[in-house]
């Protein structure tokens, strides 16, 4: 019993020392931290706040530059309902004409480019534009166009043709636009 008591006292002292050490980390001996900026891109000009930027520049980006200068197409745009990607009945004549053209012009390849209106988030609209483009492609394939003649691409809501904040404009933006990428007869 005596032994246990002695050991306990030693233990107690050790613990107290341990505790005391912990407390000693407080005040008076400041811990110095060397602060560095690990990321420091110096090669680029830093943007100055309050810099006068032309107001016109703040308008939405219109059609992407890559679209310009390409062969204009004999195809017309196909339009969609809000948040939908199924082919509307009034688009079927347009797509029939497109498939007739593709079947007659075996050298032609096209890109179906899906677009969305400005409402909705960029990411979801990118996926929706893609779904619209593929829905058009599937429809054309079902009419007999070889699948390898049609590629698809989504611009999401990033390349609007109309920038008013109204349904009259939104309906124009919810589209699949065709670009002839090879063998256009026009």
């Amino acid at each position, binding site marked *: *019993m005596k032994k246990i*008591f002695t*050991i306990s*006292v030693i*233990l*107690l002292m050790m*613990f107290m020392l341990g*505790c005391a050490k*912990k*407390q000693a980390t*407080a*005040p*008076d*001996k*400041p*811990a*110095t*931290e060397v*602060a*560095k*900026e*690990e*990321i420091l*891109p110096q090669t*680029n*000009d*830093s*943007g*100055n706040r*309050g*810099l*006068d*930027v*032309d*107001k016109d*520049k*703040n308008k939405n*980006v219109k059609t*992407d*530059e*890559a679209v310009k200068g390409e062969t204009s197409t004999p195809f017309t745009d196909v339009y969609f309902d809000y*948040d939908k990607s199924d082919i509307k009945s009034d688009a079927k004549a347009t797509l029939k004409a497109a498939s007739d053209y593709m079947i007659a012009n075996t050298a032609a390849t096209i890109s179906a480019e899906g677009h969305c209106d400005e*409402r*909705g*988030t*960029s*990411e*979801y609209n*990118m*996926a*929706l534009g*893609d*779904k619209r483009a*593929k829905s058009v492609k599937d429809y054309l394939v079902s009419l007999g166009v070889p699948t390898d003649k049609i590629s*698809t*691409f*989504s*611009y*999401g809501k990033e*390349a609007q043709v109309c920038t008013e904040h109204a349904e009259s404009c939104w309906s124009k933006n919810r589209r699949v636009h065709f670009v002839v990428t090879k063998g256009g007869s026009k």
Partner: protein
Amino acid sequence: MMKKIIILMVLLICFSSVTVQAKVYIDITSPGARQIPIAVVDFEGEDIGRQVADIIRSDLDYSGFFRQFDKSVFVEKPNQSFDAQNWKPLGVELVVKGTVETITTAMGKVLKVNISVFDVFSSTRILTKSFQARESILRLVSHKAANSVYESITGLSGVFDTKIAFVADDLSNRYTNKKYIYIMDWDGERVRKVTDGDNIVMRPHWSPDGLSLAYTFEKSKRWGINLIDLKTLQSEILLISQAANITGDFAPDGENLLISSSIKGISNIYRLNTKSKTLSPLSSTYNIETSPSTSSSGSEIVYVSDQDSTPQIFIMDKEGNNKRRVTFSGSYNTSPNFSYSGEKIVYSAIIGGKFQVMMINKDGTNMVQLTSEGNNEEPYFSPDGRYVVFTSDRFGNKSVFITRNDGTGQKVLSPNKIRAFGPSWSLK
């Protein structure tokens, strides 16, 4: 028996000393916590001392947990030592003091910032800390100092030295339509451009170490995912194709990136290994699935799916199983972001024809609307979940805004007069 008592005593002594050290002055986790009266005295060291104190005041102020005093009422001057009697009559409970000096080290001439926090009631010093840094990063050091003050009082980590990345027009060239990625401090200062510009750029996402950003860009009608090293500004294309390849959050391992891609038909969620550049599908559905975001554990992924015909927020486990719907209110809920702790989700919803930032528990309960003016989209939590950055068009052009997670304190962070969007918050 004796032994047991002694051990118990020892444990008690140890615990009580630890408790004293970790005294929490305000329990900011409890709703309606009072604001603690704090005085930040200008630091000794002329102009620079004043600047450091100003940044600390501003950081503490935005946190919403402190009540500050105009320094004109301070009796104690910066060069006088702390005396509780100078502060008690003012009702001040905590005092922050410090010095800034220039010293010469191996790094050359650097600033040394010494900081102390005093408890007026017990007349004791509760924090002493020093920082050394080049003068060019004075703001960063001040934010780090603010973090130590915040931590010494609340017991929680501060986020004042973290950063926000976003997409915007060119700040210096008005004749380009290109979009750039910028980073800035949490208070909107030190805005720096980190990319050379692309036609279309989507929201960047930080690697967990805060040293790189992944983002989606368009080039020659292909969608690429780029990884940019923020130390060197070198970038590497991880994936590029005609499919809609859209960057989401990094997995906590920092090696895998969650993305959505329409590479196999419709947009689904994949894990993209940034080293091997291989894709592993997390789900294979006929529905749109996009915008993956994950918490610090990485065990669950929140994302958008249109499987119930409208876009809604869903959660699945990290291997793509156990899918469950989180949002049941409204017909358009997108752009989710998981809090680091994995408890809350922020997202944007269409309410009355406008986009608003919403916050909800991951089990779908406790939905709150954080914004109401204009359209508010693309919310992203701070690492501690106390603040949210988002995009708003309430003043015309889209700008990056910040709010506290209770909807108070909404303000613009991105530079004036340029279109800015797609913010995300670094963990470090």
